[in-house]
């Protein structure tokens, strides 16, 4: 449950059992924004969303209104797809949002579909979320019965159909082009871009893929205006931010907080601080694919741009003395990602923790690109032997160099999702890894650092 701090937007109905039904949702103001939107011109809705500075809440933080304008003007068969495949470790907001306010998502989708002139639309939901599949299917059925969905939404002539599409267990399907392949009945392997989905997506048609939380903000933008939403946030990031705080804090939880609140405030004030007698050691700022913050970097704001550019955050290195280059000389600090904040205190075995992260990405690589398929599995093996005191001389540099070889050389970002935290933890917690290497029982020269 959120604490009382700042304006609540998408979590305002949390805890309200009645609002989970369509009658209760309508009673609490639901579907009013849709009525207003249906009286607007679609391009005006797009403009409000652009003015709102709403940015994608799934991970990349791309400007939603700008994304919507990528659909070709003369397009006829457009699709809107909601990405409800939440599986980034440490992230549990979309599942809660869907459980507590399924109709807010549906209303946001109908408005977005109207703005995009999208008539055949889907919610792609993770296969394991069986409870939420039932919640959404029931809510969609209710919305059809009340005329919010169908061949003529509320008698306006606008046809809008929505189908809940259940996945079957594959992290990679959260990547939007893998999601589209999965929705088409293929294996969930990412597509080369371009063409981008907004031009050629689902069934070859222009398609916009948006995250659950992103779409849930849309009714409020229509009701209150883009400027209102933009003013709620800071800089180029409008609105609030829903974060999921887990790990070593007194009060883990899903919290809707003011954009730009610092990590120290989140940990100490919202979540009651570290566990008794412990101090915070590492903080993953937005899902396990993001480079961590260390204890000296917690005064930076939890906001898209700050996490990429704030100079108080150390630059990620390939090895000591060599900054990682993202291309064109761009340096990597970290990113806001999915809002999954994982707090690890000084009791944490960092090499073991990093091995668990690598184990996940090695398991979830779709196998399509060699650098990811082979490289992430290789990192997992080396990280494991390091963690278990079987590290070979040179293994830490080897890990950095494998990560460097993966990043930027794959079709989708899963390669980076493993390479970035590997390099990030090595950069900021090298002493922990070196201490473990010093305990290694492998004799220099006996194994060979290149063997995997």
């Amino acid at each position, binding site marked *: 449950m959120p604490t009382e701090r700042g304006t609540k937007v998408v979590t305002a109905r949390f805890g309200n059992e009645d609002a989970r039904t369509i009658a209760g949702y309508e009673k609490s103001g639901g579907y009013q924004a849709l009525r207003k939107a249906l009286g607007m011109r679609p391009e005006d809705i797009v403009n409000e969303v652009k003015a709102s500075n709403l940015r994608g809440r799934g991970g990349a933080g791309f400007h939603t209104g700008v994304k919507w304008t990528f659909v070709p003007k003369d397009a006829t068969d457009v699709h809107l797809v909601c990405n409800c495949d939440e599986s980034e470790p440490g992230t549990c907001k979309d599942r809660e949002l869907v459980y507590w306010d399924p109709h807010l998502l549906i209303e946001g989708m109908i408005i977005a579909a109207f703005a995009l002139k999208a008539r055949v639309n889907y919610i792609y939901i993770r296969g394991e979320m069986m409870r939420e599949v*039932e919640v959404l299917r029931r809510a969609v059925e209710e919305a059809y019965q009340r005329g919010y969905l169908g061949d003529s939404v509320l008698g306006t002539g606008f046809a809008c159909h929505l189908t809940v599409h259940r996945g079957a267990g594959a992290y990679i399907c959260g990547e939007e082009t893998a999601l589209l392949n999965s929705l088409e009945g293929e294996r969930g392997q990412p597509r080369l871009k371009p063409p981008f989905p907004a031009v050629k997506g689902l069934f070859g048609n222009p398609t916009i893929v948006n995250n659950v939380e992103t779409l849930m903000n849309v009714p409020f933008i229509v009701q209150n205006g883009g400027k209102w939403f933009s003013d709620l946030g800071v800089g180029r990031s409008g609105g609030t931010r829903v974060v999921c705080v887990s790990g070593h804090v007194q009060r883990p939880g899903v919290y809707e907080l003011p954009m730009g609140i610092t990590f120290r405030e989140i940990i100490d004030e919202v979540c009651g601080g570290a566990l008794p007698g412990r101090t915070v050691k590492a903080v993953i700022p937005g899902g396990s694919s993001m480079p961590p913050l260390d204890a000296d970097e917690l005064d930076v704001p939890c906001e898209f741009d700050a996490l990429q550019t704030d100079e108080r955050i150390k630059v990620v290195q390939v090895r000591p003395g060599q900054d990682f280059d993202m291309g064109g000389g761009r340096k990597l600090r970290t990113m806001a990602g999915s809002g999954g904040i994982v707090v690890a205190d000084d009791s944490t075995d960092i090499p073991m923790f990093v091995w668990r992260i690598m184990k996940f990405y090695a398991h979830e690589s779709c196998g399509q690109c060699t650098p990811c398929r082979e490289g992430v599995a290789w990192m997992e093996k080396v990280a494991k032997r390091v963690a278990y005191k079987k590290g070979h001389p040179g293994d830490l540099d080897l890990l950095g160099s494998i990560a460097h070889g993966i990043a930027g050389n794959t079709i989708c970002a899963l390669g980076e999702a493993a390479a970035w935290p590997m390099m990030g933890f090595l950069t900021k917690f090298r002493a922990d890894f070196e201490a473990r290497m010093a305990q290694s029982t492998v004799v220099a020269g006996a194994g060979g650092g290149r063997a995997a």
Partner: protein
Amino acid sequence: MSLEFSADSQRKIADLCERYPSKKPVVLAALHLAQKEFGHLSDDALRLVASTLELPYPHVYGVATFYTMFRREPGGRQTLRVCTNVSCMLRGAYPVLESFERELGLERGESNAEFSLVEEECIAACANAPAVLCGTRYFLDVTPEGVREIVQYLKKHPHPEGEVA
């Protein structure tokens, strides 16, 4: 031995085919339904899905083996998914998983008639770690000591995954 879908599943598949421009996107739903009816996806079950949706068998095979929720071998009536990913790990997920192993007499990845025990990746319940999922039921803030109670509860109130197909 050739298999047949129940009338209910046939109707569900036919309804779903109306929601897409072709039958191919219904493959995941049809595989979920087949697993619900037959317990696992044997070669015959895959052939049934292929013929029902007019898809090549190798395509259905490729899809069924890509996604982790589909199983090619028989398993337990219920699937216990114990998350051990980072948020749960920090809160003691491995002792919880070991407690399930002792309680059920199974190792992770094994099944008996009642339960399959799965070491699961993040199930999006990180704020209440360690978390365990069985069908539509989440068990939150689980302790090794609480495992016996969960198992006893599920024996009395089963939550098979097939209920949501």
